[in-house]
């Protein structure tokens, strides 16, 4: 049966409104309801794979009302969001026992999921701004959940930069409405195709790129990420760097550039430079870190650089009118790395959370020799570090390989060399993690450390085996249904508007 699209936003919203009513005694029921909701979302996301539909809200035709668009790209993002949020919700059932007012935490978590689903599905730029605002407001509050010194300062810094980015995006929306007279993405791209890009729309595009670049923590705007992620509770930093910066930042940037404004050579050069900058600076800043979560946060920046680089190369080939096969290969590498990074980065943050919960610290110097004390965390962490560093059988390797091949194909040998060097440096820093946390001798105050059983183990184990199985996504049968439609959505760029209108 066909699932109506607003279900993806309605379920998390209704659960979010219900959860604060549970209060102290209903905590178990609240957690169960929240887990049920994320599971339901996962099931409905899986059933919708490969379909593409337009859903008009209120039965109003396209320019009048708002329409929700499900095409390859948003379906891929929906899958990533629901997988990561399901695992993180399972993990936080036990991890959040350390904090008070758990039902409010769950409600904010569901609001963040609703905001991200709303952003990924919406076909209207103002609606995209509103749901982006919901997801970021929920994440500001969740970053400051523990109310300690660092967490409050980090959430204030994140909130200031986030609010500036949202005001930039709103200003861009106002400019686009002023110049094209409509808010619907399909109608805007049609107006741009017919009347061409005037200076106002170019200025709006710059505003969008700064705003969404700031949400995606690309280099010139990455100031908030290394502070926000370590101080957030572990499941929240897993959601933040796993999915939030992707769906709010990269997805919106890519959707606006490819489908609404159309790809141009200068824009794709900006994308490539942003990608390379964040790749290089992220990894070199990460090497010197001794705090486990801060190191992971810097790696998020550099891995996001991979994604933006892959998509930027594809955009450049499209803008220059090169052959479509190369461009789709580059974009395939970028998107596949986006999904891989969502899975293994959230797994890494979950393992850091379980280490912090049982040992109480996350400084690499104070840890060591946890192999026999925490076997499950050891295996999941090593699987995730192997896949982030790009060791063959795991999923990180395949996507990095595709990006390197597409860079070589497109003639950017220097870029390919930079990518390989950066992945080597990532490998070094992740070996450092393995060395300091798991090998070496056990410090005396950590003798009675014990493994985290229960839902935390299930969450970590499921993400770990996903890491291993994701490599299979590249075999042709699976690829056609999941990755290929997402790539075709981007490669046929401006024809998006015609597809929407006649769908």
């Amino acid at each position, binding site marked *: 049966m066909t699932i109506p699209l607003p279900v993806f936003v309605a379920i998390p*919203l209704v659960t979010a*409104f219900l959860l604060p009513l549970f209060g102290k005694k209903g905590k178990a029921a609240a957690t169960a309801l929240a887990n049920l909701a994320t599971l339901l979302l996962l099931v409905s996301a899986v059933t919708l794979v490969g379909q593409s539909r337009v*859903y008009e809200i*209120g*039965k109003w035709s396209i320019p009048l009302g708002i329409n929700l668009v499900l095409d390859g790209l948003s379906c891929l993002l929906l899958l990533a969001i629901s997988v990561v949020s399901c695992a993180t919700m399972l993990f936080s059932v036990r991890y959040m026992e350390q904090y008070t007012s758990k039902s409010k935490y769950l409600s904010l978590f569901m609001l963040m999921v609703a905001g991200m689903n709303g952003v990924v599905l919406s076909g209207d730029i103002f609606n995209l701004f509103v749901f982006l605002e919901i997801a970021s407001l929920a994440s500001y509050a969740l970053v400051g959940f523990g109310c300690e010194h660092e967490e409050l300062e980090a959430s204030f810094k994140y909130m200031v930069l986030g609010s500036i980015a949202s005001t930039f995006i709103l200003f861009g929306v106002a400019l686009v409405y002023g110049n094209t007279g409509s808010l619907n993405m399909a109608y805007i791209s049609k107006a741009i195709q017919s009347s061409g890009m005037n200076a106002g729309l170019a200025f709006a595009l710059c505003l969008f790129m700064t705003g969404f670049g700031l949400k995606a923590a690309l280099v010139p705007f990455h100031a908030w990420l290394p502070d926000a992620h370590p101080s957030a509770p572990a499941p929240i930093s897993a959601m933040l760097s796993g999915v939030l910066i992707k769906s709010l930042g990269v997805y919106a940037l890519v959707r606006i550039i490819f489908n609404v404004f159309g790809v141009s050579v200068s824009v794709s050069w900006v994308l490539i430079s942003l990608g390379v900058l964040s790749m290089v600076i992220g990894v070199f800043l990460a090497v010197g870190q001794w705090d486990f979560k801060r190191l992971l946060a810097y790696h998020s920046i550099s891995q996001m650089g991979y994604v933006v680089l892959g998509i930027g190369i594809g955009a450049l080939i499209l803008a220059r009118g090169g052959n479509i096969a190369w461009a789709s290969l580059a974009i395939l590498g970028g998107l596949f790395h986006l999904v891989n990074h969502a899975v293994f980065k959230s797994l890494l943050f979950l393992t850091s959370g379980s280490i912090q919960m049982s040992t109480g610290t996350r400084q690499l110097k104070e840890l060591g020799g946890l192999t026999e004390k925490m076997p499950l965390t050891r295996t999941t962490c090593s699987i995730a570090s192997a896949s982030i560093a790009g060791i063959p059988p795991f999923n990180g390797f395949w996507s990095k390989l595709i990006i390197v091949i597409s860079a070589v194909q497109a003639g950017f040998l220097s870029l390919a060399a930079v990518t390989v060097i950066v992945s080597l440096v990532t490998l070094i820093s992740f070996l450092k993690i393995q060395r300091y946390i798991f090998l070496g001798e056990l410090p005396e105050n950590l003798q009675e450390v014990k493994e985290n059983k229960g839902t935390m183990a299930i969450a970590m184990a499921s993400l770990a085996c996903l890491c291993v199985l994701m490599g299979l996504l590249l075999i042709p049968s699976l690829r056609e249904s999941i990755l290929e439609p997402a790539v075709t959505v981007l490669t046929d760029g401006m024809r998006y508007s015609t597809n929407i209108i006649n769908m």
Partner: protein
Amino acid sequence: MKGMTIIVKNISSFVKVLIFLFGIYIILFGHLTPGGGFAGGVIIASSYVLLMLAYGREFAEENLSLSMTSKLDCLGALLFAAVGLFGLFYGAASFFWNFIHQKSWWGEPFNLLSAGTIPLSNIFIGIKVGASLFLVILILSSFRLETSASEKE
């Protein structure tokens, strides 16, 4: 913080009723005259805030307690979502389908019952915005007690 002088207390207890009535008017006639759910809700919240400023937090707490306000807040939001979902399930139409107007059950233009689900959602939005804004002010002022307590010891 025991509220302000007697003059302010007497006036505000009278004026609060008027403000509240004005807020209700703005919400109910939202689809005919300017105003609507948001403006009316904020006006209702400001009537309670006036009470709190004039009489001090404890008096306002008895009038509308913290837990009651947060329940109202969640209830208003749920009812508004229910209006949307009802359109989805009722005529198997779409999310925010104005089923009362489209099916033209009641009301013709220019009188109170005219615009289908619009007055309904106006009322629910009014409850929600009023409750949540009063909740913010209540939380911000109740936090002050805790800091002044810590400053004392």
